[in-house]
């Protein structure tokens, strides 16, 4: 863990809503987290839980006009990005905060040489001349481990393999030495062997540059390997916020427990993998109470009535579940009493 100083990123009560003909969808609905220098924060959750929308919100790249940040603040070194004018925001993008996207095959412009795609950002943010920017771009390609980078820089994306394209994306994201790197499923589209290499590259560069990393993934293996703290998201909410160690050793939220239980175990010989029953609620029609209650094995009346707050369970763990409230046991007693009354 990094030493406690002023955090480089502080997200408070972030809400991103989409207004469409079908109604209002709330993919991000009140998110809080803090990222310190040199630290890696993992955001995990299944597809549609709002993790990618959270990262796009930080860069203010949500598809408009249907989507917009409906509330909260994103403090980058104390400066609220939500309130920044667009021209100022452009100076932050790619320079202070940059992003690696999950689809290396489609995230690079097919008709522009990759070297130019990297050099473009360097020229823009670092005021370098054409030649110097090109040289820096070649150097970045070398840094991410692309062989004969001078030749590769002149090539177009279709001449590169998927792994190489993802390296180009990383080189592009890191070209201006950002303070925060958001990696949105950086390894999802890649082979397992390439995955390990890419994660290694990100880790090494993080050490060299001292940047904060937000690692968005649905792969718990990636979390175990790279993250200091982890945020588990479910239907637009954070359901558990804890350290990476604690997450695996002692998962608190029933959803997190379910996620970990559904991981296949190498020593077990089972016919079917375990799953969490049910499906994620529609972001257009979220339940009034806890969003996981319909799938939760421990669900009680209160769960479907009120959405719990994040209860602080220990110093570094917060859980959004009524089980960790003081009332849980009382309520259990009350329910038992009710049952007994009915029986008698």
């Amino acid at each position, binding site marked *: 863990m990094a030493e406690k100083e002023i955090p480089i990123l502080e997200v408070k009560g972030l809400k991103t809503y989409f207004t469409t003909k079908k109604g209002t969808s709330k993919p991000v609905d009140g998110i809080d987290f803090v990222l310190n220098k040199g630290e890696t924060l993992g955001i995990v959750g299944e597809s549609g839980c709002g993790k990618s929308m959270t990262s796009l919100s930080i860069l203010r790249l949500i598809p408009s006009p249907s989507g917009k940040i409906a509330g909260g603040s994103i403090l980058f070194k104390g400066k609220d990005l939500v309130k920044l004018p667009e021209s100022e925001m452009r100076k932050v993008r790619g320079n202070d905060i940059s992003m690696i*996207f999950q689809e290396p095959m489609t995230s690079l*412009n*097919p008709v*522009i040489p990759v070297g130019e795609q990297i050099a473009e950002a360097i020229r823009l943010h670092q005021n370098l001349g054409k030649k110097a920017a090109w040289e820096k771009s070649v150097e970045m390609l070398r840094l991410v481990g692309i062989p004969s980078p001078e030749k590769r820089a002149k090539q177009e994306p279709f001449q590169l393999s998927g792994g190489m394209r993802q390296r180009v994306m990383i080189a592009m994201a890191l070209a201006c030495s950002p303070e925060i790197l958001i990696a949105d499923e950086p390894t999802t589209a890649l082979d397992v062997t390439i995955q390990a290499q890419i994660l290694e590259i990100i880790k090494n560069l993080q050490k060299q540059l001292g940047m904060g990393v937000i690692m968005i993934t649905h792969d718990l293996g990636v979390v175990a390997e790279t993250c200091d703290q982890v945020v588990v998201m479910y239907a637009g909410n954070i359901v558990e916020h804890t350290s990476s160690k604690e997450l695996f050793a002692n998962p608190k939220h029933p959803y997190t427990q379910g996620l970990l239980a559904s991981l296949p175990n190498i020593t077990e010989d089972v016919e079917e993998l375990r799953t969490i029953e049910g499906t994620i609620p529609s972001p257009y029609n979220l339940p009034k109470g806890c969003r996981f209650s319909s799938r939760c094995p421990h669900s009680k009346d209160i769960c479907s009535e009120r959405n719990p707050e994040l209860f602080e369970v220990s110093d570094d763990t917060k859980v959004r579940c009524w089980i960790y409230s003081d009332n849980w046991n009382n309520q259990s007693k009350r329910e038992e009493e009710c049952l007994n009354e009915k029986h008698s």
Partner: protein
Amino acid sequence: MAMFIFRRLFQTIPVIIGVTFVVFFIMQLVPGDPAVILAGEGASKETIEALREQLGLNQPLIIQYFDYITSLLKGDFGTSLKSSQPVLDEILVRLPITMELAFVSILITIFLGMAAGIIAAIKPYSLQDIGVMLIALLGISLPSFWLGLMLMYFFSVKLQILPVAGWDSPLHIILPAITLGVGGAAIVARMTRSSMLEVIGQDYIRTARAKGIKETIIIFKHALRNALIPVITVVGLQFGALLGGTVLVESIFAINGLGRMIVDAIRMRDLPMVQGGVLVASLIFVIVNLLVDIFYRLFNKRIDLN
């Protein structure tokens, strides 16, 4: 790239042979005997027969076709039945006029069309988009002969700022070029809009935004180059339609170009002249398509003929 052009050039040979074949045999379907027309009314049977013999019209069609091809290779497009002048001479006089008109018209098609398409695509479903697309719909729907006459009436007769007809000064080119180019511009505008909208939704545009690049650079550098590929195809096809349109527009504005030459020749049943005119127009279309393919390749290196 040189190899690409060479290979593509090679591929045009069968197309050109096909074109001569079609042009030649279509002319055979035209009613009326050239020998009768040439001999004039009231000519004797013997005169007509002699003319037939002289023109080689008694030969089987396939022999006539080969004769036609061999003369073409020698640069002989035949002799006009009316003026008795070589067809090629007449074409060479008319062709530059039509090419000039076509060139200015296609520029209008490209620039007006692309500009309108981009303006519409930047703010989809906004008032500016709906407005531009409504004008484009109007542009597609207006028949060129009507548009030509209206422009002529308004600018030449009413306002008297542009010449009515003819081909004497650069001012003369304005109205016919607009008449000819507007329909294509409307089609190009619609194509550019839909192509731009598709490209703007792509992941790599989001990547460009994430780099902090200005929206104008994103539109012109990142989006337009990708969006242009289908637009180039449409421009190529439009050029064909435009050549066809010269026939009408040259007649309306009394321009002595290739189009009008063909119309006059058809009216007078001057078959060698029609044949020559149609052949040259077809060759121009083939060349334009060749250029389209080369442009394709310039914009997108993934395109390979292999």
